[in-house]
């Protein structure tokens, strides 16, 4: 039973200003960085920190995942933002792609 303080939606009707159902429909993408033998670990960490504004610890964790598992999912985003991140990573010559999340 919905609380009186929370908005609720009548099935089949759209509540004005409620974009949750649209959000669910919008496709999302994983931004993936793939391993290669040529990029230095310190360079990959640096690039992650620059592009995502991450602390060194988080950047290193993802870098190690790329190194040990062959890839790391860096973020999950809508198409436009995922595209932006792939462009940024590729401009540093990291092998990055965007893969449909579902």
């Amino acid at each position, binding site marked *: 039973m919905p609380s009186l303080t929370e908005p609720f939606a009548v099935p089949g009707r759209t509540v004005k200003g409620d974009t949750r159902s649209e959000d669910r429909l919008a496709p999302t993408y994983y931004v*993936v960085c793939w391993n290669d033998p*040529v990029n230095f670990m310190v360079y990959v960490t640096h690039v992650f920190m620059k592009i995502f504004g991450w602390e060194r610890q988080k950047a290193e964790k993802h870098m190690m995942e790329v190194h040990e598992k062959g890839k790391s999912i860096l973020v999950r985003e809508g198409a436009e933002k995922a595209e932006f991140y792939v462009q940024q990573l590729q401009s540093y010559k990291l092998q990055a792609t965007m893969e449909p999340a579902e």
Partner: protein
Amino acid sequence: MKLVKQTQKGFQYELDQEDADSLRFLVKQFPLTAFSPVDISKTDSGSSAVEREALLNESLQAHRDDLKRKARRLVLPDKFKTLDGKQFFQVSLGARETLLQILNDIRVESWRVLGEPEDPDVNIFGLSKDKFKYYHFMRLAGYFEYHFLNLEEERG
């Protein structure tokens, strides 16, 4: 090579004459190869992915052209100051990012010319004269890249 000064605006490195000459020479070689397009996805081959991939490659090519314009300016004589026989290379934060991208482009593209070996430390005796040139570029770019980043890390 030494990191002499690091501020919020940029970096100053001390280089010996040989390193300074090598850095200038290397950066002037950029780009070593023609632009090679990249894949935007390994699993998505839909029409929107094809469209996105075309836009991505257009944007990366424009970015590379921009790096080419900036490359020579990065190593202009006024960026190097000589004091007591030592060379001091000064670079802003933004310019250092550009420099890292240029160096890594040289490194990765050289590695590609060498056939993308699993171990970049290939047996040099099996290389042709032309391929040896790329091996040398790959190593040299890696040397500067590694030192620029590690000197910063050492300082914390």
